């Protein structure tokens, strides 16, 4: 009984919280302008990201040298309290903005994804937390591989 009520309350709080923090990102449209931007700064502008502060609390796990640029695994964790979303930019890709992952409605600020990286490039991550932006980057090298496999 207690348990149920608490869950309901928390659920309500979550909904309220989401409402207070502005429109839930999940309801927003896929940001065409940001996705079609040809540089990471342009994409960030289109997303309204500004004054992102360098942070060591964003962990990016990606290979230093990718075996194959067509499939580069990336693990991202934000240890910044109340992180609501994480956005990924592969700076040297023709369209750097790769995606935004929204955790605000009930998930841990962690995501694993696999991406195409055309040439050696920094992978930049921007975390949104408490109305502010934090950022960190990791360089991934892409080389020519062998013929076999």
């Amino acid at each position, binding site marked *: 009984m207690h348990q149920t009520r608490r869950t309901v309350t928390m659920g309500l709080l979550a909904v309220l919280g989401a409402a207070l923090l502005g429109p839930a990102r999940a309801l927003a449209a896929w940001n065409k302008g940001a996705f079609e931007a040809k540089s990471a700064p342009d994409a960030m502008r289109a997303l309204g990201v500004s004054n992102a502060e360098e942070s060591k609390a964003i962990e990016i796990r990606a290979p230093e040298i990718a075996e194959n640029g067509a499939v580069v695994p990336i693990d991202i964790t934000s240890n910044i309290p109340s992180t609501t979303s994480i956005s990924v930019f592969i700076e040297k890709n023709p369209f750097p903005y790769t995606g935004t992952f929204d955790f605000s409605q009930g998930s841990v600020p962690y995501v694993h994804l696999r991406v195409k990286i055309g040439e050696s490039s920094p992978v930049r991550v921007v975390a949104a937390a408490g109305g502010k932006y934090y950022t960190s980057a990791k360089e991934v090298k892409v*080389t*020519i*591989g*062998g*013929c076999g496999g």
Partner: protein
Amino acid sequence: MRLASAGLLAVAAALLASCATPQRDYRPDALTMMKRDFHARGIAKMDRLDEDNVQAVCNKYRDDPPQGVADKLQKEQLAAIKWPADGKLLGDWKAGERIAQNGRGMMWSDKSGDGGSCYNCHQIGPRESSFGTIGPSLYQFAKLRGYGADIQRYAYGKIYNAKAYSLCSQMPRFGHVGALTEQQMKDLTALLMDPASPVNQ
């Protein structure tokens, strides 16, 4: 008792059979099977399954032919090298680098010979870290060996026909089989020999 000894005999016979049977040569079986199962595709025709005299000797002796046999064939291969009529062995090292990088050529998916596949097996220029190790490093090729005419000739000849220098070398005979043109081989020679080539920096 009797059964046991019969069993023993059988075992002994089996052992004998396995020891006594000389290792049968399955190469004819393999060739028959391949000739039945393969088909020509694109530029890769069925005659590619036939051994030439060099391949035959290397296959027969598993790449370790008797000295006399090897010497005779190597001389033949060397004599068959067509040296450039203009006497010039060095082309453009920049074009050579592109040919060295290109791993295409002579496959059924190709139209002709094309690249030299050099980086597949060799370290060459200092800026390419993705190189193979089947062949020796060629970095600083001429810087270490000298820029003289004899070394130039060796480099060109080796690219043209590696088997003229080491009969069962794993390196293709690019000129001998027409995989690379004279100009392409000159460009590759320049990549190794030109003092301005990054290889010799």
